[in-house]
Structure formats: C-alpha cells, structure tokens
C-alpha cells in the first residue's frame, strides 16, 4: 500500500512542488502552526480598529493592559495562590478518588451498592456546592480547596471504579497464578490496567477544578484570579478584563499541556499500542 501511495503522490506533486529542503519544510510547518492564529488576531485588530466598540478593544490595548496588570505584584498575590489552591484541591481529589475507586471497584457488592449514589453525586453540577459551602463556613482558603475537592473527586472516582472493574480476566488470572496479591497486585496489575481510565477521569476533573477555582473566587472572595477579573468587569475596565480572560485562557492551556506531558509519560505503553478505545471513551 505504501508503494502505491508514494507513486500517486509523485504524480500529483511533482508538477507544483520542487523537492522540499529542510528549511522549506520547517517554514511550512511554522506557517501551519502560526498561520491561522495570526490571521485571527489580524482580523480582530482590523475589526476593532475599523469600528471601535467599547467592549472590543484592539489586541494592542489588551496587550498593554496585560503587561501593566499582570506583570506586577498581582502574580504573587492573586495568580499563584489561586493556582496553588487549585493544585492542592486537585491532588487531594485525585488521591481520594483513586483510593476509594480502587476499593469500590474491587468488590462487586460494594460497587452495585455505591453506583446509584455516585451517579447522583456526579450529576450534581459542582458549582452549586460553592454557595452551599459559603453558607456553611464562609470561604477561607481551606473552604476554597474543599470546593475544588468536592467537585473534582467524582469523575476520578467513577472512572477508577470502571477501570478497576474492567481489569482483564486473563491478566488477573495470570497474576493470581504467579502469586501476585496485596500491594504488589495493586501496583503491578490493578493500577496500571486501570490507568487509562483513571487518567480520563483526571482530565475531566482538571477542567472542573479550574471552573470551581474561578467560580469560588468570583462568588465570594476578595482576592484571586476570578475575583480580579470580575472586579475589572464591574468597573468597566474592558482591556484589563480581556487581559484577565487571556490569563485564564493561558492557565487552562498551560495546565492542559502539563497534563498531557504527564499522561504521555504514564500511558506511554497504552498510547503506543494505539490507545485502543482511549479516544473513543
């Protein structure tokens, strides 16, 4: 098949393309990666300067505001504490979810009993917990972390239960024949086998975590990223507000990049195998 393809490629491409040198190929790649974003920003620029609206400042003004607002003490006072709380809550939720998930997933009885309850908790939109927790205890740091934990834990828990349940029967038998039990069974068999599912749960939990971090701060806080952005919006500081949106976007993007790097490391064996149903799930 590969010979057929190269044959066809040659016929169609010989006319319009000289043999591409490495420089030219790098240029093409750069164009592919940056072409559309640059076009979009240029379009935004053209639109916002041609018809100056109050709500849509030019990218230049947003960039200026960005530099002024965020390259300051705000980074240490608002951004880093927010991210710290997010990561703490996320890590706690991960530990809790995997731990409970392994316990529940390993027992049929427990699983059948817990399933409806878990389905219910998963279906509760996590942000509604914010007003509840506020009502109960106000929103200090511990509570903000608690909000994140209480929202993130469900996808991790449910996916772990599912992953542990689906450990391959033959693999499990093999492990038992060779005397794999207890901690070793968990470490060498159950957790790796469930890891694609667990990572899927963690991925969902990450985006829920960011949402909860922002909402917790928007709703009831005097500091933090979410609070600052809402403050700008209420004060009609539009370029600053846009710069805040950009910061949130960058945060989401950065965390997802980091997550993907970790995932690639942990699931290297799974991804190289073609990921099976990984992308379908």
């Amino acid at each position: 098949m590969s010979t057929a393809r190269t044959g066809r490629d040659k016929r169609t491409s010989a006319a319009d393309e000289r043999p591409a040198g490495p420089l030219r190929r790098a240029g093409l790649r750069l164009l592919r990666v940056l072409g559309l974003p640059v076009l979009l920003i240029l379009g935004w620029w053209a639109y916002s300067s041609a018809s100056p609206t109050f709500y849509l400042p030019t990218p230049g003004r947003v960039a200026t505001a960005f530099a002024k607002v965020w390259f300051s003490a705000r980074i240490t006072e608002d951004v880093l504490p927010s991210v710290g709380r997010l990561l703490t809550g996320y890590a706690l939720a991960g530990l809790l979810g995997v731990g409970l998930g392994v316990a529940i997933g390993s027992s049929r009885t427990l699983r059948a009993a817990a399933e409806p309850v878990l389905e219910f908790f998963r279906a509760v939109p996590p942000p509604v917990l914010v007003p509840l927790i506020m009502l109960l205890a106000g929103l200090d740091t511990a509570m903000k972390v608690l909000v994140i934990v209480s929202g993130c834990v469900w996808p991790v828990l449910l996916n772990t239960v599912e992953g542990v349940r689906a450990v391959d029967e033959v693999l499990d038998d093999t492990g038992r024949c060779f005397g794999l039990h207890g901690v070793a069974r968990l470490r060498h068999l159950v957790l790796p086998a469930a890891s694609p599912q667990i990572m899927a749960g963690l991925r969902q939990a990450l985006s829920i975590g960011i949402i909860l971090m922002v909402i917790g701060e928007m709703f009831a806080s005097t500091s933090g990223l979410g609070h600052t952005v809402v403050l700008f919006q209420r004060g009609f500081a539009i370029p600053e507000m846009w710069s805040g949106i950009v910061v949130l976007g960058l945060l989401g993007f950065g965390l997802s990049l980091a997550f993907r790097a970790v995932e690639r490391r942990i699931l290297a064996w799974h991804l190289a195998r073609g990921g099976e149903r990984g992308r379908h799930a």
Partner: protein
Amino acid sequence: MTRRGARAGAPLSTPRAAGLGLLGLACLFAVAEAVPRLGLVDPRHLPPATAILRRLATELGDATLWTALGETLRSWALGLAIACCLAVALGVLIDAVPGLRAATASTIEFLRPIPSVALIPLATLLFGAETGSTLLLVVYASFWQVLIQVLYGVADVDPVARETARSYRLGRWAHLRHLVWPTALPYVMTGLRLAAAVAFILAVTAELVIGSPGLGLRIQLAQSGGAVTEVYALIVLAGLVGVTVNTAVRAVERRVLAWHPSVRGEAAR
C-alpha cells in the same frame, strides 16, 4: 470458598444489583438523616434528609420552580443543539478541505482548554443577566467536546472503504452521506454525551454566577436569603435533573447506534 470463583469484574444479576443500589441509596439517606439528628453536625448546616425532601416536595408544588427549571433546560437543550450543529459542520468542513486540518490544529489546541468560565465577565457585559449569557457559556463549553470527537470520527474512516468509494466514483455528497457520516456517528454521540453533562453544569453555573433566570439563580437567591434547607433541596433537585439528563442522553446514544458493535457488545455483556 465458593465466593473465590466469583470475580470482581463480572456483573451481578439485575435484581440483585438493583437491590444493592437501593440499599446504597437508603444508607446515604439514613446517614444524612442521622448525622444532624444525633448532633454530629449542626442541623442548621446540614438539615436532616427528611426535612430536605419535605422542602423539595413543597418546592415542586411551586409553579415558579417549574418555570425556573424550564428556563435551565431550555438553555441546556438550545445551547447543546447549537454547539452540536456548529461542531459537526465545522468538523466535516475541516475534514473535507485538504490542508485545513493541519492549519486549524494549533488554534483548536489553544482554544479548547480555555475554561468557559473565563467568558463569564464577557457574557455579563454583552447580555447582562439574561438567557443569552447562559447560552454563550453553554455553547462554548459543549462545542469543543463535540468538535474534538467529530474530528476523531471523520479521521477514522477506513482507508480501504475510502478507496472503495473512490473506485465506485461516489460523489462528494454520497461519500459524506454513506461513508463519513456513519463512521463519525458513534464519535458524535460520544461527544454529545460528554457535552450534555458539561452543558448542564455550565447552564446552572451561568445562572448561579451571572444571575440569568433558571435553577441556578434560585439556588443563589435561597443562599443569599440564608434558607439552608431550600439550598439543599434545590441541589438535590439539580442532581436528579442531572441524572435524568445523563440517562436520557445515554438512551438516545444507544438507540441511534443500535447497529454499532460497541453498543451491541455493551448490551450483550
């Protein structure tokens, strides 16, 4: 001894599983009832389960609650529908135009992880505390879920099937209709299922934070009025609606994909 043969992965018989499930729910109920009654937690912070359910019953007798619920579900359905149509159209377009996938990849990878709540200030400015704000967030959040799945789906068309279609000189439309769409459909349904859950979360969130009409606004009002029991009752309601939404979408998925091996396998298991 005999239990050793029973493995953790095998499903229980349906009536037993249902019985155990009910037992689990009953346990949750009992704990939620006992903890405040025994004074382990201040009943002002966690009212007994019976009080919450009684309050929920009263709320359900209130016509305005149904209006609010209707608002939320309308935003949910409308937002989901818009996002789906946009995502499917864009996904198919990206697949159909050569080079477009490579050109859009970086932009999609950047925009996708942007948390939809980042748009809350913008939505507030543009639409104020109205349904439009809710829609904006719902559409943005669910759009990416569907688009990503559509992109996987259209790329999954079997190369041999593609060649076959070419050799029979299938037109562009027939190619789309008989080859691309059936292949992508399971992926679209997966995207829809994921998006439905996200859309419901975002609908409630938008109402809660921005104050557009719906269930979320009601929770927020109850909270600022200090009506703890009502807050709990509404949260339980939100959870029940969420379960219903998830179950309904799963049922639709199963029905649409009745011919598909992944669903058939699941049903047979």
